[in-house]
């Protein structure tokens, strides 16, 4: 009753091919956007900003980037943490070297730098496949972290090895540094995420995205029908690293404010991003958001339950939390290996028929 294509007639190709072909879905999407852009900023406080909303937005962006590489182009990467670090350090260097440059352009330029690094580390993918490639990308992870630790030019010779984001503003509103108001950081991240999600959606259903998927499904066959592996794989690495770099830049400058490379961009971040993509659904834009939401919100919820409600010591709670997250990941993979996005798809199929069985 709620969700029907009946009566929703398409008269041209454009409207037939739109992202949300069903009217109620379109309304739902725009309603969510209005809530996110116009209502949430008025009620946001710094707890919700720091522990829920901003990490959610930033991780969604990173998951989106990894999904382009792993979900759409089929190249498993465990170097996400390293690429995030590239974005963060590029952002830091640009912020300190050009204090007058608008933070928006700083973030975009950090993405560009990361894209170049990503392409470099994507080169082995032309020769190595599958798990061998996954392990090879670990080389990127460890190497990049080592570089940022070793050469003090990257952290401006600060004795602690930490990088700290100076306050920068956009349209006169501070978005980085400790004094940024919660609504400003939130809106800044949300806007960037909105733009990039829109770009990703349209990239993946266009010519580029189709060539990625061809390579993912079977690279030899794709090569025979004329999809060039070199250009396709490297473009996937570039776009994915661009997203991850922008995510890393926001992660450092807006979310953390100060970062120490081994702690903030370790291998656990690579795994976290991969989990988001797998739990959310490989090869799905919506899946990236759902996966990020699941893995960001659940620890917060569990912590509130164990420490807040039950009053257990934090170390016991932390151990149980790791256990539960591990268990839930396994459970999810068993119940729905295609991720939350697939569950949503199935729900929509059911809704379409509801209240009738078929």
């Amino acid at each position, binding site marked *: 009753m709620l969700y029907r294509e009946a009566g929703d007639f398409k008269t041209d190709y454009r409207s037939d091919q739109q992202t949300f072909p069903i009217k109620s879905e379109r309304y739902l999407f725009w309603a969510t956007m209005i809530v996110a852009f116009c209502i949430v900023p008025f009620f946001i406080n710094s707890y919700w900003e720091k522990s829920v909303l901003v990490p959610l937005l930033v991780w969604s962006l990173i998951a989106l980037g990894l999904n382009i590489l792993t979900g759409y182009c089929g190249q*498993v990467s465990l170097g996400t943490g390293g690429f995030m670090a590239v974005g963060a350090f590029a952002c830091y260097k640009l912020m300190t070297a050009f204090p007058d440059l608008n933070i928006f352009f700083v973030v975009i330029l950090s993405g560009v730098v990361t894209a170049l690094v990503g392409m470099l580390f994507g080169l*082995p993918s032309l*020769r*190595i*496949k*599958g*798990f*061998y490639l*996954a*392990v*090879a990308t*670990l*080389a990127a992870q*460890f*190497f990049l*972290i*080592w570089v940022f*630790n*070793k*050469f003090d030019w990257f952290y401006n010779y600060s004795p602690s090895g930490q990088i700290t984001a100076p306050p920068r503003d956009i349209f006169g509103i501070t978005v980085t540094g400790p004094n940024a108001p919660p609504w400003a950081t939130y809106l800044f991240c949300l806007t960037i995420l909105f733009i990039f999600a829109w770009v990703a959606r349209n990239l993946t259903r266009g010519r580029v995205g189709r060539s990625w998927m061809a390579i993912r499904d*079977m690279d*030899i*066959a794709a090569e*025979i029908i004329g999809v060039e592996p070199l250009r396709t794989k490297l473009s996937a690495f570039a776009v994915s690293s661009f997203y991850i770099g922008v995510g890393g830049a926001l992660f450092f400058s807006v979310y953390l404010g100060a970062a120490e490379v081994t702690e903030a961009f370790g*291998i656990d971040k690579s*795994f976290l991003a*991969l*989990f988001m993509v*797998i739990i959310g659904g*490989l090869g799905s834009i919506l899946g990236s958001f759902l996966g990020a939401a699941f893995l960001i919100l659940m620890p917060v919820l569990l912590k509130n339950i164990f420490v807040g409600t039950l009053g*257990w*010591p934090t*170390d*016991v709670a932390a*151990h*149980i*939390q*790791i*256990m*539960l*997250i*591990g*268990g*839930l*990941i*396994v459970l999810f*993979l*068993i119940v729905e*290996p295609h991720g939350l996005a697939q569950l949503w798809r199935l729900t929509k199929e059911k809704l379409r028929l509801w209240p009738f069985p078929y």
Partner: protein
Amino acid sequence: MSPAFLNLIETTLNGLMAGVMYSLVALGFVLIFKASGIFNFAQGVMALFAALTLVGFQTGQVPFAHLINAIFGTDLHHWGPGVPTFLAILMAMAVMVLMAFLIERLVLKHLVNQEPIILFMATIGLAYFLEGMGDLMWGADIKPMNVGLPSGGSFWWEDVTREWASEGSEYYGMYIDTLDVTAALIAIALVSILTIFSQYTATGRALRAVADDHQAALSVGISLRTIWVIVWSIAGFVALVAGIMWGAKSGVQFSLSLIALKALPVLILGGFTSIPGAIVGGLIIGVGEKLAEAYIGPLVGGAIENWFAYMLALAFLLFRPQGLFGERIIERI
């Protein structure tokens, strides 16, 4: 011989010993990958868990003491003086077998025929689960591991090598840790036992059959599920050995689970499907890492051992994408 040359020999020897330790971990990966096509990321955590369990039994800790104390407000910690080492090892082994059984029953059974990446992710989930569980059961503090293995430098070897140095040079002999030598001997014994087991016993032959072709193995009446329990038990056993060795070397603590990351370059170098590959790969990585740290490290500021192994493996991969001993990858459309 000149001291510089003797130093080179010392570094190489130490590298070989370190390589054996890497091989021990890599072996567990290869066993599971061959038998079920699963890239088991939890191998490192299994080693940690096995070592924690062993120490827990040895010292007589109460499992889940922290959790019980948190819920009931009691003050439990130890139930007694603990059990003798040998018995504790057997009990830890029993726990690993039980774990293998549970993993097959609760996880693998439901994930048959899924894509490799899904299985890989499931083992990472498993790794998180085991990590949390190990900490919850036995506490997260660093524990010394004492199973009566010799340790410390070998004076005999130091005396022997001092004689080798040329007259008049200042050379004090080579340092070799007896624990490393013991570990190497145990690793050799382990590999020999595994080889004999897989060549000459019915179960071993069934294991190889499954590794060769799942469907063919099924059709001649080999139960895949039993085989998986056996393989995971063996991997658990290898993890226990690795856990004891690494634990005796640096104490039982969380960083023990990170040895899995040390084993990965060994794996891609040697090939996921080859036991000799795991050994040779481990030795190459061990020696390469130590030599690089000694001779290249000072040029770029040191601490390169974290990534050097990966770069070395990557360089090899560019020439042989399936690893040194891996099965040739044949692709069809």
